[in-house]
């Protein structure tokens, strides 16, 4: 069975960019190939579990060229190996294919990334906000969303005593 790095390189047709730090292997996959790579890693390399799916906003990060990253953390449950795949997406319409068809566990994780970062997952069966209320405007974990101060709250309708 090929390793994840060999498999990704052969699928992409060129050596995949690898960064390794403290035993974590991270591969950067272009957004248009991510679905093919993930489904290949699941079916032919044995990475059968999607351990985590997270969004990261790289605004003002040193030497970053892209805005958002989505991190897929895969685990091989029979050998215990892990691999981290990162794919970058950019404004104005950050979009990625949904992997719910591959792993049902991605359902809520993709909803959370959509809620917090505004990254759309095409093909997701039920892409709604999950942690924030539906009426909420903005995506709280984006770096340009203010941590404190006059934020989005002023957009909510105000009830007066007469209306309540």
């Amino acid at each position, binding site marked *: 069975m090929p390793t994840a790095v060999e498999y990704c390189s052969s699928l992409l047709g060129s050596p995949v960019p690898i960064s390794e*730090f*403290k035993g*974590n292997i*991270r591969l950067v996959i272009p957004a248009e190939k991510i679905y093919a790579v993930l489904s290949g890693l699941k079916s032919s390399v044995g990475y*059968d*579990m*999607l*351990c*985590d799916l*997270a969004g*990261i*906003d790289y605004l003002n*990060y*040193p*030497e970053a060229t892209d805005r958002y990253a989505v*991190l897929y*953390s895969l685990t091989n*449950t029979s050998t*215990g190996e*892990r691999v*981290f795949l990162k794919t970058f997406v950019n404004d104005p319409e950050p979009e990625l294919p949904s992997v719910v068809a591959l*792993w*049902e*566990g*991605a*359902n*809520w*994780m993709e909803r*959370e990334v959509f809620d*917090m970062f505004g990254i759309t997952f095409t093909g997701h069966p039920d892409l*709604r*906000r*999950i*942690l*924030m*209320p*539906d009426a909420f405007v903005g995506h*709280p*974990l984006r770096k340009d*969303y203010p*941590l404190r101060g006059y934020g989005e709250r002023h957009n909510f309708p105000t009830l007066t005593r007469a209306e309540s």
Partner: protein
Amino acid sequence: MPLELLDPAADTSLDSEYLYTLNFGPQHPATHTTLRLVLTLDGETIVKAVPDIGYLHSGFEKLGEDLDFNQYVTVVDRMNYISPVANEIAWVHSVEKLLGIDITPRCKYIRTILAELGRISDHLLCVAAASLDLGGLTTFFYAFNEREKVYDIIESASGQRFHPSYCRVGGMMNDITPDVVQKIRDFVRDFGKAQADIARLLNKNKIFIERTKGVGVLTREEAINRSVSGPVARASGLLRDLRKDEPYLAYGELQSSFKVVASKGGDCLSRYLVRMGEMAESIKIIAAAVENIPGGAMNIDVNEKTNIPSKQETYRTIEGLIQHFELFMWNRRFETPINEVYGANETANGELGFYVVSDGTGKPFRARTRPPSFIHFALFPHLMEGHQISDVPAILGSLNIIAAELDR
């Protein structure tokens, strides 16, 4: 979520004439914390269950980007507040991995003991609450008696009962006293009896077994497909335990003292039995660790410039004072590599991981949590299909959902 969005009439596959919608929670005795389920019922059978979460969302991950590595310890405490020390240990584990800190052997053993005490405390609550929801009140008292002792130990060690904030990057807040060791020994000695009491009440209890056996079955394939970890996965036959697979802290040295508990059933009863088995194994780990706590310093040396010096060192030595200022002034703080790291611990609920992205400053650029409760609650609609409404507390209780960790 407005109810009209979940209106079963909108779903053409469900004939709305026979069905009605029941709001289960957010405040309901059997949900324990602030969970809300929108159940579509056909008589007493659940046709569709839609969880609605976010009631306790308090932006922990956003806060993490504004607090430094030691300050965020107090926030992770509040995630899984049933076993707060285990969260702290997982967080500082990731940060120490990022900074390349190797903690002292004594600290490794103390953290291992505290993590296992946290696991026992968590499993006790889960077992107790599950049985309480199914009508067994006495188990609850037996279990909470023991949990009180765990709180006592943590209080004597750190000064705080509930949210101890005991861990620091590179060590602990302070060293433990012989009194704590004695309390841990007493706990280990007495726990077996309490656990046997609980087992006698539940293991052959006809009502308990009938309400849990074959209820909420999760197969091994589904468990892998749905990213499940921890006791829920092991009850479905997925043999994965980070304590064995990726040994951290002192688990590598204590390998021979414990086994991985697993079951093939995948139902609520298996989850209960796995949790009971894990408590017995945790006691073995604590018993082995508490008699082998290495001597020496608790924290790494002040000259390593990564841990907060003790008050004694801060006030009495020049190195300690300088180090204290270095870590507390906003323009100094930690020097971190511009890189990212994932560190995971096996906590009571499953794999609790932190993905820390650092931009070279003293604050994490991104502190992503992999929350086991969030992933396990996503299972709920799947487990609930075709069951009766009285199975809701049984399944919820067996998954051990902690809403603060779920919503963060």
